[in-house]
Every structure is written in structure tokens, then in C-alpha cells.
């Protein structure tokens, strides 16, 4: 998949440069879809299994899971872009976010799908997202303030070690206070299968995919069009110069943590609503995979992180389609090592070449 995404230089094909990226993306998606179809129905061996339908289901599944990774990866990449720290605690922020969703929904008294009352459903889901994103955003800011900011000028090893420490603190706080086993999150979104033309998609999948894309577009616009977004970008490029030009570095970095952690919180809610379960130790693996996604896309590059998240989603789902699901983790980390060795700048990370 990764090689497919890189594609051929535009000049040789004689295409408009702007068309190359979308075309490559579409090509990669088609290839992924065909791979899904080819792999479907091979492991189960059931007689009347519709390859195309199952391939399509898996394809949508991959997009959904990829969306979760993409949301987490955005936080990694933003923080890395601005203070060059691998925020190991970020995966745990995602995990706590899923617990906030669980807490909000159960406190509100829901235990299953809300069917037949669309306004209520919309309000409840929106409320859950807002609560989780706000709480996790604040948690992110607190983490930055107390664990990373005092060490901003310390040797590089120091903040990495506190990051690991914070990750263990979050994970074990949940372990000690809430639960040491799997917790059931109420799946409030009912599950009718919607038919859009030839595509049949479950409501939750459609919702997650649209939400992920919406958040990404919003982030893109925020970074590109607003003053705060510009402050963040300039701080990432040159902190001292940004400060001289009047950017408040501390609040900009805090804002970065707020947004990144809020996105992880949103991913946590998605995890709860989509899978219906969460557990105190999901953050570690999810964080690692999302970090891989961020590196794959080119760390520091938000578009790349989103893209990388989807790539990881596809790798994971493809490996389960082909019956080697338990090797999925190994495949993902193998990808990480290969990318770091052969293309440390990631798919879209050219401008950061000297940093890798």
C-alpha cells in the first residue's frame, strides 16, 4: 500500500500536479478494496458467502478503524511538530476518553440504542463528544503544564521518561479507580443498514467516517486559516522567531495539547460507540499504532498523520481478512521499522527531512 501511495512523479505522466495525489489515493483505495474482496470468504469457507459484499464490509470497517487511528495520530503529530516530543501518554489520553464516554452515557442512564428519537440521539451523542473532548483537552493541558513544560530545556531523555511515567499514571489510575476488566459502553447509535446506491453501510460506520473526516477538515481549516493556527505553525517552524513576532509560546503549546488531546478524546468516544467496549490497557497498543501512523505519514504533518491512520487501519483489517489477524501488531510495527529505516520522512514528510 505504501508504495502505491507514493506513485510516479507527475511530470513523467504529464498530468496536472494537483490531480496526482487524489488519483493515487483513489488507486490505492481501489487496490485495497480488491485485496479485501480477494481475501474474503477464504478463511470461513462457508458456501454461500458473497465475496463482494463481505469485501465491502471489511473495506468500511478498515475506514472506520483507520479513522480512530487517524484521530489519535493527529495529536501525536501536532505535539511532535511543535515541541519535538513523542507524547507517550497520548494513547492513554485516548483510553481515558473512552472511559469518559462510558461514564457520561451510563450516568445519563442509557444502556442501549436510542431508536425512534432522532433529536435525542443527536443531542446525546453530541453531548458525549463535547464532554469527552473538553475533559481530555484539559487533561492534555494539565499533562503539558506539569510533566513537560518544566523539562522543556532539559536533556531530551527527561521529557520522554516523564511521558512514559504519565502514561503509566493514567493507565493505572483507571485500573485502580474504575475497573481492571472490560467495561461495556452503551452503543447508543442504532444499527440500521443504510443503502446509498450500491453501497450498504451501517449507520455507525457512516457516522464515524463522516465525523473523522469532518474533524480533520476542521483542524485543517483551523491550522490554515486562523491566527491561532498560524501561531501554532510558526511556533513549530521556529520557536524563537515566533516569540519575537509576538506569539505567546506557552499558550500556543498548551493549545496544541488541548486540540491534540481533544481529538484523542473524540477517538475514545468513537471507540466506545463503535466497539461497545473499553478496557484500561487499550491505550498502549492504540497509541503505538497511531504513532506508527504519524511516522508513516511524515511526523509533524497533519495530512500525513490522517493518511497514515487509514493505512494502518487497512493493514490491520487486511491481515485479519487473510486470517493472520494475530500477526496484525507485528505487521504494524514491522511497517514502522521499515518506514523509519527506508523513508524516515514518511509519505508526506519531505519538509522535515533534516529532522529525521
Amino acid at each position: 500500500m505504501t508504495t502505491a501511495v507514493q506513485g510516479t512523479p507527475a511530470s513523467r505522466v504529464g498530468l496536472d500536479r494537483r490531480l496526482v495525489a487524489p488519483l493515487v489515493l483513489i488507486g490505492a483505495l481501489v487496490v485495497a478494496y480488491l485485496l479485501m474482496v480477494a481475501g474474503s470468504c477464504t478463511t470461513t469457507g462457508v458456501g454461500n458467502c458473497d465475496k463482494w459484499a463481505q469485501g465491502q464490509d471489511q473495506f468500511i470497517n478498515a475506514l472506520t478503524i483507520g479513522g480512530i487511528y487517524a484521530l489519535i495520530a493527529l495529536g501525536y503529530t501536532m505535539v511532535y511538530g511543535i515541541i519535538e516530543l513523542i507524547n507517550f501518554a497520548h494513547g492513554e489520553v485516548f483510553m481515558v476518553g473512552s472511559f469518559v464516554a462510558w461514564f457520561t452515557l451510563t450516568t445519563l442512564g442509557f444502556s442501549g440504542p436510542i431508536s425512534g428519537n432522532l433529536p435525542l440521539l443527536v443531542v446525546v451523542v453530541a453531548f458525549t463528544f463535547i464532554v469527552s473532548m473538553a475533559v481530555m483537552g484539559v487533561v492534555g493541558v494539565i499533562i503539558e503544564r506539569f510533566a513537560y513544560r518544566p523539562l522543556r530545556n532539559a536533556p531530551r531523555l527527561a521529557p520522554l521518561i516523564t511521558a512514559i511515567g504519565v502514561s503509566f499514571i493514567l493507565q493505572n489510575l483507571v485500573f485502580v479507580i474504575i475497573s481492571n476488566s472490560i467495561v461495556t459502553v452503551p452503543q447508543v447509535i442504532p444499527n440500521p443498514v443504510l443503502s446509498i446506491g450500491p453501497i450498504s453501510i451501517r449507520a455507525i460506520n457512516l457516522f464515524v467516517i463522516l465525523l473523522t473526516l469532518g474533524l480533520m477538515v476542521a483542524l485543517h481549516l483551523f491550522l490554515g486559516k486562523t491566527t491561532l493556527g498560524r501561531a501554532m505553525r510558526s511556533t513549530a517552524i521556529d520557536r524563537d522567531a515566533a516569540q519575537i513576532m509576538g506569539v505567546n509560546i506557552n499558550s500556543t503549546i498548551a493549545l496544541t495539547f488541548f486540540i491534540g488531546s481533544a481529538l484523542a478524546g473524540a477517538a475514545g468516544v468513537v471507540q466506545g460507540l463503535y466497539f461497545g467496549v473499553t478496557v484500561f490497557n487499550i491505550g498502549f497498543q492504540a497509541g503505538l499504532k497511531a504513532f506508527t501512523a504519524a511516522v508513516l505519514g511524515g511526523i509533524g504533518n497533519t495530512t500525513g498523520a490522517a493518511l497514515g491512520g487509514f493505512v494502518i487501519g487497512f493493514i490491520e483489517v487486511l491481515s485479519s481478512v487473510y486470517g493472520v489477524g494475530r500477526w496484525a501488531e507485528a505487521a504494524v510495527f514491522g511497517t514502522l521499522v521499515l518506514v523509519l529505516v527506508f523513508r524516515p520522512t514518511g509519505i508526506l514528510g519531505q519538509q522535515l527531512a533534516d529532522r529525521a
Partner: protein
Amino acid sequence: MSATVTPVKGGGASGAKNVFGVRSYLGKHQSLSILVIVCIIAILLPLLAVIPPFSGFGTQKDWVAGFAQAGVFVLLALGLNVVVGFAGLLDLGYAAFFAIGAYTMAYAASGFTGLDLPFWPLLLVGAIVAAVFGVLLGAPTLRLRGDYLAIVTLGFGEIVPVVFLNADKYTNGTNGITGISQPSFYGLFGINGFGFTNPWPYYLTILVLITIVVMLLYRLQDSRLGRAWVALREDELAAASMGINTVTTKLLAFAIGASTAGLAGVYYAAKLGSVTPDQFKFDVSFTALAMVVLGGMGNIWGVAAGALIIYELQSQGLKQLDAFIKALHLPAIGPIDINQINFLNFQYLLYGLALVLMMLLRPEGLFPSRRRKRELHEEPAVDELTSPDPTGERE
């Protein structure tokens, strides 16, 4: 403990008080003094176990068995200290090398493969096998920047147990490999097989291993390679321009660290008699890291002491605290009933807190190496002028 061990550090240069020339003598004869210190500790620890507060927590035999187990973590911390403390590379997948050592022992001396090779040479074999894997992992990744290395090692640490778990044809999956042969003294001291009931031979063995490793590490620390590690840790660019081959130097740190873990793994497998993939999860890497950080990165004795203290705190301290609080029969305050709380679950929470607080308040560790202390606490103003931008953000 730190008071007795500090004089050994830094060769003959430690001359605060030179009582009857003992200090300068010990400084000149490092290996001998290491031997003496380990012997003293080796005698003191079992004696400590029969003194009242401790004797109430378990029999001397239990304690000695616990110390033998703690020794495994001392070895792990010593090895990780080479990577993190000496060379300044963050290795978060250290348990992988420990696992590789343990499985080497399991393959070489158990019913699973039908082999029954002797334990003693296997110690070396396990160390070498782990070192080879260290090089295999390090060679492609050590050219990367430090934090990428951290994440790659983290990934490696995750993959290795997964491989041992999933490749069940070759590793027996979740159940692991059991029936690993015991070490043997071949009749020496009247002991053939070590057996599972008598902890003393294991205790002695791990002490010997630790002594050898500490001796070697001291020699390494003061060697050309050791100084190269320090130079690399302080400023990679400057080190490279002074002619240090950065990749080889890092690779050696990685390989030596891995080999120590491999050694510990062989011993661990033989002591336990079985290996399963879930013994080598991330919490082992994390525990070892906490030991190194708390003990004092770069200080051999500090790290060893940190490992022993943390191990005993987690295995005995929390258990006794739990029992103590339960015995008080405190009344419940509202919804919080302290008697329902299992303090054993707080282990990793405490490690996490300790890591963060340590980094913020006392980054040089409980028993800092002299150099590290100076680095972190002396005249920051001069540092800012002379050292390149520590955050590395300016290109």
C-alpha cells in the same frame, strides 16, 4: 548502602577522607573492592532477613529466594543502565532481550526440544544470542534520532512476546515451555541439581553473576568506549567530529545492554523452570527503566541499589502495607472503604508517579553519579552559552 559504595567510584580520584589509606587502596583495586562489597552485601542481606520486622514477613528461605529473584532485576537494571545511563539511548523494549535469553535457555535445556545442554556455558550463549538480536535491531535504527529509537524499541518489545505467543508450533504459545533443566554444581559443595526448594545456590549464582557484570561494567565505563558513550550522550555532533564512530559506539552499547538482559534471561528461565510469553511484557521493560531512573542513571551502584530497593518494595513493601492497613480495620468513609482497596494494584501507578516526580525534582536519581549531578546542577548560565540548543529545535 550508598555510603559504603561511593568511595569506589571514579577510580583513585575520590579522596575526601582517606582513612588508613583504605579508600585509595580500594580505588586502585576496583575489581577487588567490588568483590569485597558484594561479599559484605551477600552476607548482610540474609542476616537482615532474620531481624524482627523483616523476619515477621517471611522465613529466611523466602527472603533469600526473593533476593535471588531481585538479583535478576539488578542484572536487568545494570544492563539497561549501559544503554540509558551511559550512552543516553532510551530503550523501551528491553524485556525483549530478557525474553530472548530466557527462551534460549528453554530451547537448549528442556524436554520441549529434547536438548539438555549444561547451564553454565548457556549463560554465555544466551548473552551472545541476545546481543546478536540487539545488533540486528540496532543496526538499522540507531542512525535515527533518539526518540525514534525509543519508539522502535517499544515496538520491538511488543513484537517479541507476540512472536513467542503466536508462533506456537515453535514456542508452545501461551503455555510456554516448561520443564527447563536445573543448573548443577556437578557434586561441588555437595550439590548436584539446584532443585526448586533450596534458594541458596541460586542466591550465590546470581551474586557471582552480578559481581562479574559489575566488574566488567566498571572497566567498560572507564575505557575508551565508556568515554565515547559519555561524549555521545552529551553531544552527538561534537563526538562525531572528534572522530567517534557514532553508529558503532551506539551499537556496542545496545549489544552490551542486550547481552546482560540475555544473561539474566538464562538464569531466570533456569530458576523458574518454565517460560511463558506474558512474563516478558512491557511492564518488565518499564520496571527496569524505573529502577535505572530512580537509582541514578549512569551510576552502577546506584542502579543496582535502585533495583534491589524497588524490587523489595514491590514484592514485600506493598504486600505488608496492604496487610497492615487491612489489620487496622479502619471504618469506611462514605463510599470509600479502605479495606476494599488492594494496594498491590498500585505498583505501576507508583512507578509512574516516581518517574515523573524524579525527573522533575531530582533528575539525577537517588544515588547520582558524580558526573550526572554536576551536569544537572551546576551553573546553568554557563551551560546555555556553551552547549548547543538542548531542545535541538534550531536547524
